């Protein structure tokens, strides 16, 4: 899953991005509204974490403009905690509203919920054959036994599981598993797919030649 964080406070932005990357997300960042909007416009992020007080274009405007063109889930991050600010945020199109200061675990949970909801899932558990995926705990078990996966491998499995039944193109996988800071070689993706097949079964991820991959 690839996220975009738009926040102007540098110390906050850096640690938030780091924390989310360590959670297994690919994270892009922007420190002002203009750049943030530009990026959100051009990539299909799985979720956007948006601060309200931004230079060049404030969060409200970014949100309003984004909503005209995309359905990307947006979680608003702000110091304004008044009910009317929350109402405004939610009515303008935000999917969730978190007040600073916040606890990281809570932020993580809300991001997960956003992504889950977008994938039309209601629980954190996904079952595919004898493979069980717990998206909250971010672990996978096969036939009851836990399976060790790297963060990237987990991210790959989670993404494909959430798009179960769809054909996912390689480009999509690039866009959602790597962020702007990654120097991605095209065969890195193949390596990840191959590793997942080794751990979860060759049939787990099917290849559609010329189109992409899919989990059935």
């Amino acid at each position, binding site marked *: 899953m690839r996220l975009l964080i738009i926040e102007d406070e540098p110390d906050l932005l850096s640690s938030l991005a780091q924390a989310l990357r360590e959670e297994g997300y690919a994270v892009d960042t922007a420190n002002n509204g203009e750049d943030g909007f530009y990026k959100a416009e051009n990539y299909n992020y799985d979720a956007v974490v948006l601060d309200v007080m931004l230079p060049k274009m404030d969060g409200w405007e970014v949100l309003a403009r984004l909503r005209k063109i995309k359905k990307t889930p947006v979680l608003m991050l702000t110091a304004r905690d008044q009910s009317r600010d929350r109402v405004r945020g939610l009515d303008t199109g935000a999917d969730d509203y978190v007040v*600073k200061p916040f606890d990281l675990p809570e932020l993580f949970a809300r991001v997960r919920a956003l992504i889950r909801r977008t994938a039309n899932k209601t629980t954190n558990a996904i079952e595919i054959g004898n493979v069980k995926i717990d998206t909250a705990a971010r672990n996978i078990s096969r036939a009851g036994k836990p399976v060790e996966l790297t963060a990237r491998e987990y991210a790959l499995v989670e993404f494909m599981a959430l798009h179960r039944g769809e054909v996912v193109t390689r480009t999509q996988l690039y866009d959602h598993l790597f962020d702007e800071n990654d120097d991605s070689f095209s065969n890195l993706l193949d390596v990840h797919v191959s590793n997942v097949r080794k751990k979860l079964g060759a049939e787990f991820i099917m290849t559609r030649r010329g189109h992409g991959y899919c989990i059935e």
Partner: protein
Amino acid sequence: MKIFKSIKWQLQLWYGLILVAVLAALGVTAYQLQRNLQFSRIDGELQRRFPPLTDALHAHGRGPGGPPFEGMPPDQMPGDLPPPDDARPHEFHLPPQAVAFFDANDPHNFYFTIYRDGEEVARSTNAPAKNIFSQDDSIVFASEPGAGPGRPPQTVTEGNIRASIHTLPTGETIVVGCNIANELHELNMTALTLTGVGAIILFFGLAGGWWISSRAIRPVENISATAVKISAGDLSQRINSAEMEGELGQLAAVLNSTFARLEAAFAQQKQFASDAAHELRTPVSVILTQTQTALNREREAGEYKQTVEACQRAAQRMKKLIGALLELARLDAGQEQMKRLRFDFSKTVGDCVDVIKPLADERQVNLERTLSPVEIQGDSERLAQTVTNLLSNAIQYNHDGGVVKISTRAENGMAVLIVSDTGQGIPAEDLPRIFERFYRADRSRSSGNAGLGLAISKAIISAHGGTIDVASEENVGTTFTLRLPLT
């Protein structure tokens, strides 16, 4: 008693008293006039009857013998005529028209009695038997004041009888009287009518007065009710002065504007407190996120160091903010004792310029100073704080290679400091608001500026009895003008 403290009741009471007094005066006057009218009419009648009697007396009084008193109605016996006495002229003869004057059929019952030397010498048939003017049947009116020969006629009223007494120069006393029972009755009726009408008028007058004073007092009650609501906490209430005119309308208008100022002041206070808490949220957020991330897993020393440094930065920000907030709070409460020392403000300004020079050099901004000595009285440290704030703003919002001009001079009894820069300027719509607390033209926080610098500066300047003004043009520059009273 509480009721007597009410304006309405007091008004009513005084109004009622005055009304009663006026009505009483009118009534009494009307009654008196009526009475005078009645009596003067009666008196006129009485007086009319004297000449014939006088004539009869003089014409016939002194003749020896003569026909007995004529003029009595034929079916009446001559009454108590005293026995003829040759020494006394006692008979007289009333001509017929005079007789008509003393017609017993007339309800007034005009009668006459004539006395000489204290004894009755003639009377009309309808004269009252008893001499009402004597205490014990003897004639005492001779000693009445005014009675006596040649004196002016005297008019007396006793019971239902009104009589006029003439004393002739020849010594006789003629009493002509009549029954004024009817008149008295009429007067009583008049009195009763007047009282009755007066009572009705009083009633309606009081009722009308009550209505008027209620109407007059209602705006006051309206104002009072609104004030109660306001003091209970709802500062948004206003007096509905749509129908109030004149003095009360003015009062309502003044009160309304006072309430508006009160509401604004409270709102500003609330806003300030809320903004202050708000500003602290971000540094706390930084610390929380940084530390929680760092603690999520084992880190290397370098990473921990970075986290700790970030926390320090945040804490410094909070320290600055808290200091600024406390300063403002103290200035607000008037608790700050401003030092009152004399000093040369231009020297203070010069020192500030020196201190800020490194920052200016960094941004390649030139500082031009023209400082004339100006002596003022106040707190040099705080004013230095203000000057530094203005200078750092002038540098910060300037273009690289720009200029900041600083000058001090005395003008019109004021020390004037001008700081002007060639920077990005301030948009016209922001200009009136830059001295507001937490107001930043650049709405973000990344510059680390909480927006309190100018608010504090303004508070300090006001505490010194000075003023600060700003003029600006976008992309041309900004000029701040500070005025402080000279000693």
